[in-house]
């Protein structure tokens, strides 16, 4: 049985705005005396767009791939290595747009070709900063913050 963890509620800015509008002294009392709800948090950005399996990544048997262009077009690079704290690869010379260029800060879409792991890419090296992620066997376009701005990648949460 999963237990929802009870964490201390600092309160969101939106909630605070409401509280402050009604009287600033109300907020701390409520926060301190009511049971703390399970804290909702943003969890990166899920970018699933379509089922993986028909891309070059799937056919080639890589666990995950990054593509130079959106919608898994253009040059692509794949790996079975769990982590890259810094993506150091270059797109192979495959006669596609982007070939021969560095992969880091140069990809627009990503594919997860595993059946049982998520794939995540971060905006900064060593898995820091905000991130985009995919569920098993999905591909998606990187969001504007991560597009041409991805620094590290891993497959994770394998079941």
């Amino acid at each position, binding site marked *: 049985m999963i237990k929802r963890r009870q964490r201390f509620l600092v309160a969101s800015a939106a909630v605070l705005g409401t509280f402050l509008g009604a009287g600033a002294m109300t907020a701390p009392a409520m926060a301190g005396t009511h049971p703390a709800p399970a*804290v909702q948090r943003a969890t990166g950005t899920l970018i699933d*767009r379509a089922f993986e399996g028909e891309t070059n990544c799937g056919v080639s048997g890589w666990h995950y791939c990054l593509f130079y262009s959106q919608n898994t077009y253009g040059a692509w690079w794949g790996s079975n290595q769990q982590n890259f704290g810094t993506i150091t690869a270059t797109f192979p010379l495959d006669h596609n747009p982007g070939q021969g260029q560095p992969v880091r800060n140069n990809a627009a879409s990503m594919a997860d070709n595993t059946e049982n792991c998520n794939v995540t890419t971060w905006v900064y090296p060593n898995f820091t900063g905000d991130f*985009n992620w995919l569920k098993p066997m999905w591909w998606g376009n990187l969001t504007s913050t991560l597009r041409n701005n991805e620094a590290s990648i891993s497959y994770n949460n394998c079941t």
Partner: protein
Amino acid sequence: MRLGGTTILAVMSLGCVLAGAGCASGRSAAAPAAVRPASTPSAAPTPTPSSVLQYQLPLAAYQLTALQNAEEDYLAQRLEQLCLGKLGFSFLPGLSEKAIAQGVRITDEFESRLYGVSDPVAVRTYGYHLPSWAQGTGKPVSAADLGAAEWAALTGNGPAPAGRPVPRGGCSGQAEHELQQAGINATTQRSGGSDLSTLAGSAQLASFEHAQSSPPVRAVFARWSACMRRYGDHYATPFTAAADPRWTRSATPSRLEIQTAGHDIGCKFRANVLGVEFVVVSRYQDQAITARAAAFAQVKKIIASEALGLRRLMASLPTQPGQNAAPS
């Protein structure tokens, strides 16, 4: 808990910072309109969380929780597994409801790295590296390793197993259909475009990006950097510390890396990086929500519907062998 004793002060001061009014200075509440977004460092104390897991950003109300995300992950895989089981395939034999707790734990770790590493327990072993347990309990299996018949049953592409009718779109399509029937919008496009489901994620990423170059965050990074210099570490930001090639080029963390990561977290707490980031990111997120209030109200309804669907579907699934009833 570190925040417990300072809650009242923290909440009040946070309100002052967000209102842009500076409560201590007695500025009028009518003043905020003149204040540039998240660009006014406040002398008022900000919250002092010791973990990003202790606070709730405004956009969290418009997104699934880590637990709900993990449940959705699990459900999709479990439904595929059940469907393929009826067709005679043993798909994801290692899958159990323990995957939900694992998913939450890993998401928590990723969240703790939003502003550079901040999980003191993890860095004691792993330094700046990702903890080994983030891989999960299973070994990765490439979809290309599935046999042709199982692949066809999963995707609906290719010849169906003899005498066994495969659902339209395969078991993957069937699972998506069942999730949708339960109110879980699994197939909605979540990247690019103007789809409502991309709204919160896009605003979240934008708020993060804008915050990192904002004056308050640049100022707190400067304080963090000065703190690090006392240890002989010269980094401009927590992100450049994590990006040190000495760490990224090494497969395992060195003693120096672990020590530096420990200093990093200590300085984050001393400079209150997490508290300042929270205030600034919150403000950007509030602005994004206000700017598209009607759309965000729709998103909130979608999320509520998905949450309800998740609860119902979790409760309705057959219990896996050797496990207790599904969590509600």
